[in-house]
């Protein structure tokens, strides 16, 4: 269901064909990319700084000129004309080509960085990575790595496509502000600050690369031994960062999510969300809207949460000591506190929010809770063996399966096929935790406007999280869904002004009016009787 009709031909004349200017802009951008590809194939460029600048400017200029031509001559307003016909946004040939290229890039990036020219064991960089050396030198004072290359391209993607999104939604202040926000957080927090921090490093002082807005469990490696060690070795600043890492998930996140819903993170701050909302915007309608997909989503994403909690616990546990006199936090205290926190959350939810949990969510919670407890018990009683698996295996498989394959290769590589939020919806443990809170304990909701809904389905079509918004709107029901990232696009595209994202009191947040305003009051009462 809901598959656009792709146009598989490259030449078919379409009413929504690219204009000449758009074709030229695309060509400019692609040329910029080709320079990078040539570099990757070890074509030698003299004047590296010039060539790199030229390439990056051409890529950005391509996107910017394209956007100007596409949107500037037109009235401000909803700009979805032709989305379902254009090859790249309707799973046509261009979509597949883009998807394959992106996927290949991610695979090379994660597993074959030497192909990009990364110098191994202190050797000089060559190829593409070497092309980025001068830039890396300027910013952090050291030579580039594949991650630096990726960081630059990622940031440019968010900035350039962010510009495009800003033009597309220039009539909508909510969309504009949150786009400025993700552009800022990517440029400053994800890219510049960590690189500048690297400048502070010396032989005696070294901080791990830290994107401050990248919170555990999205940043699943934050509490690994090498990082924690270097945080601690770096003295007060390091310790402050480590504490910040813990506070951000246990204090800051719950407070902000309570006040604003998970959108404060997912569509205002997060880098994955930032890319999805900018470069990924042309693909948002490709998300699967079937109820079946929703079922899968709940199972998969919650399994990832269990996985990451177990993995992190095991990892931290593995490097803690047993001797309380050496360090207050021992293996045992740690495990007990994890179990205590989980139990506390579990009990609170079951006592106060059980009524709001759908049946299967409850089963899921009970099931997972039991699994976690069983694993803990196993460990606790036999002491030497680390859970069922070796910690290292657990850590590596998480990094490989979730960190690389799911979030990168599938999550981003498959934008043009599965939509732009596949990772955020099915894979991100951070989103699942925020979502859990959003569903049960947050002021955020999408309110509906009485009887104005005409069931047209624009909202559901453009919901990147695959939420069937219309199903709620046409019944006049608030939308309170754990997966909603608060992008606000459903509200923007609604032609009848039915939807509004709001933070309001908890009372009456989840209402299920089966009947809408417009009819006389007696009938409303009657049908709402259960």
């Amino acid at each position, binding site marked *: 269901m809901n598959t656009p009709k792709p146009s598989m031909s490259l030449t078919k004349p379409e009413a929504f064909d690219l204009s000449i200017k758009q074709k030229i802009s695309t060509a400019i951008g692609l040329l910029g990319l080709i320079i990078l590809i040539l570099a990757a194939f070890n074509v030698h460029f003299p004047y590296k700084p010039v060539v790199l600048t030229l390439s990056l400017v051409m890529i950005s200029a391509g996107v910017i000129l394209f956007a100007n031509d596409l949107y500037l001559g037109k009235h401000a307003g909803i700009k979805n004309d032709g989305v379902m016909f254009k090859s790249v946004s309707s799973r046509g040939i261009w979509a597949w080509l883009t998807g394959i290229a992106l996927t290949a890039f991610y695979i090379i990036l994660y597993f074959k960085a030497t192909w990009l020219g990364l110098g191994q064991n202190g050797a000089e960089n060559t190829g593409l990575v070497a092309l980025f050396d001068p830039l890396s030198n300027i910013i952090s004072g050291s030579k580039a790595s594949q991650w630096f290359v990726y960081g630059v391209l990622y940031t440019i993607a968010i900035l350039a496509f962010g510009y495009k999104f800003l033009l597309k939604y220039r009539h909508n202040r909510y969309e504009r502000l949150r786009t400025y926000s993700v552009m800022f957080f990517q440029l400053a927090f994800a890219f510049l600050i960590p690189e500048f921090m690297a400048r502070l490093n010396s032989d005696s002082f070294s901080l791990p690369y830290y994107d401050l807005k990248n919170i555990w469990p999205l940043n699943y490696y934050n509490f690994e031994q090498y990082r924690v060690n270097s945080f601690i070795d770096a003295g007060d600043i390091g310790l402050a960062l480590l504490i910040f890492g813990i506070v951000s998930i246990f204090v800051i996140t719950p407070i902000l999510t309570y006040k604003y819903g998970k959108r404060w993170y997912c569509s205002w701050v997060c880098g994955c969300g930032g890319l999805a909302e900018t470069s990924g915007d042309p693909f948002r309608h490709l998300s699967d809207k079937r109820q079946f997909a929703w079922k899968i989503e709940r199972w998969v994403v919650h399994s990832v949460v269990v996985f990451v909690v177990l993995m992190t616990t095991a990892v931290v546990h593995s490097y803690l000591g047993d001797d309380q006199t050496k360090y207050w936090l021992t293996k045992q205290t740690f495990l007990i506190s994890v179990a205590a926190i989980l139990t506390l959350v579990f009990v609170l939810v079951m006592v106060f929010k059980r009524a709001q949990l759908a049946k299967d969510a409850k089963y899921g919670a009970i099931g997972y809770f039991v699994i976690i407890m069983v694993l803990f018990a196993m460990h606790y009683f036999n002491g030497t063996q680390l859970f069922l698996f070796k910690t290292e295996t657990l850590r590596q498989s998480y990094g490989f399966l979730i960190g690389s394959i799911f979030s990168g290769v599938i999550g981003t590589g498959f934008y043009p096929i599965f939509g732009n939020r596949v990772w955020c919806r099915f894979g991100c443990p951070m989103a699942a935790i925020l979502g859990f809170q959003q569903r049960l304990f947050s002021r955020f909701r999408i309110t509906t406007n*009485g009887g104005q809904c005409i069931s047209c389905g624009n909202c559901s079509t453009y919901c990147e999280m695959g939420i069937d918004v219309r199903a709620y709107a046409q019944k006049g029901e608030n939308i309170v869904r754990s997966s909603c990232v608060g992008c606000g696009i459903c509200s923007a595209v609604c032609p009848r002004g039915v939807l509004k994202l709001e933070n309001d009191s908890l009372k009456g947040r989840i209402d299920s009016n*089966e009947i809408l305003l417009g009819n006389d009051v007696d009938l409303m009462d009657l049908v709402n009787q259960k």
Partner: protein
Amino acid sequence: MEHVVIIGNGISGVTLARHIRKLSNKKITIISAETEYFFSRTALMYVYMGHMTFEHTKPYEDWFWKKNRIELKQAYVTSVNTASKTLHFSEGNTITYDKLVIATGSKPNKFGWPGQDLDGVQGLYSKQDLDRLEQNAPNNEVCKRAVVVGGGLIGIELVEMLNSRNIPVTFLVRESSFWNSVLPEGESEMINRHIKSHGIDLRLSSNLKEIKSDTNGHVSAVIIEETGEELACDLVGLTAGVTPNIDFLKDSEIETGKGVKVNRFLETNIKDVYAIGDCAEQQETVGNRRPIEAVWYTGRMMGETLAQTLCGNKMPYNPGHWFNSAKFMDIEYQTYGWVFNEKGQPDYEQHFHWKHKDDDKCITIAYRKDNNAFLGINTFGIRMKHDVFDKWLTEHRTLDYVISHLKNANFDPEFYSQYDDQIKAAYSNTLQTA
């Protein structure tokens, strides 16, 4: 088990079926000739414009019907025999019912224009019309110019659709200003300007005289009544309103006027036969409401009400305060309560009008001259909350109250500019000058 047969799988028929299923175990059959599954007619335009696929217009997944034991039959009913409670299909077979509900919607008006049945002349109502449009006007090479006849809500949608494919459009509007049979002057003129700013060739006070044909029976041009001008075109869209789609009832015992006549209980003159939605004509109307209201939510409400009656809780159709909404290209429009245009206005009605300097937002509030009671509001480019205005209308609030509390009714997305201060200022100005 009682068998309820519903003709028409539009919003009214489908809502009825869903609510009957909630309330009872009756056997339910929905018949429609148009499509196998329920889709949103209101979204047809978005399919042509490429915002959505046809698949997206279906509010329920295909498994929904079976799961809820609602039988679907795709067939055309040619006649109804109420004596034997039998429906006859075009394919010759029949079906019998215990209760019959007619929910057959509307069809586009044709006023007997010469050439109205030529190839390339079409209305915009059904899925078939959409398919036909895709044939007739896939792009601006096949369709070098289109003429849309009739300046109503569907007309402006068709104009926007064709414009999205860069097809030059001439928009023939009989009235002296767009939709001014409903809208007050200031609003209607603002929309005129908006339409023109999209490059549409808007012709006001212009009637269609004749549609001319080429040698293959395809439209080649239209002639305008007032000026005699001949406009070459490849498509003529007829969007001059709709009428109930009830021709197949001509030979039945069921009483019809413009639509199927029903009382407040949505019953026809024949026992066990009911009518809802666009095709129902109320013999006794509620308030200022018209006997036939071809809008989405009234169909839905009739379905909800009739489900109660059919499931043993007899209930009159009793719509609350009037409201509606539409979108004119980029400008959203909402209305709550009654705001009449200058011609249709009752003596006691007066207006307060405010327009933003950008010429894309305005409001008109109607109130009673004698006691300042709030009667209704039209808003353009500003979203308002339905339940707030519904409450204010019920509570008989005054104009002053509404103006000073306008903020509470705002429904625009977060961070949008608010205009209530400007509106208040404009209001106190009019008080001073008056």
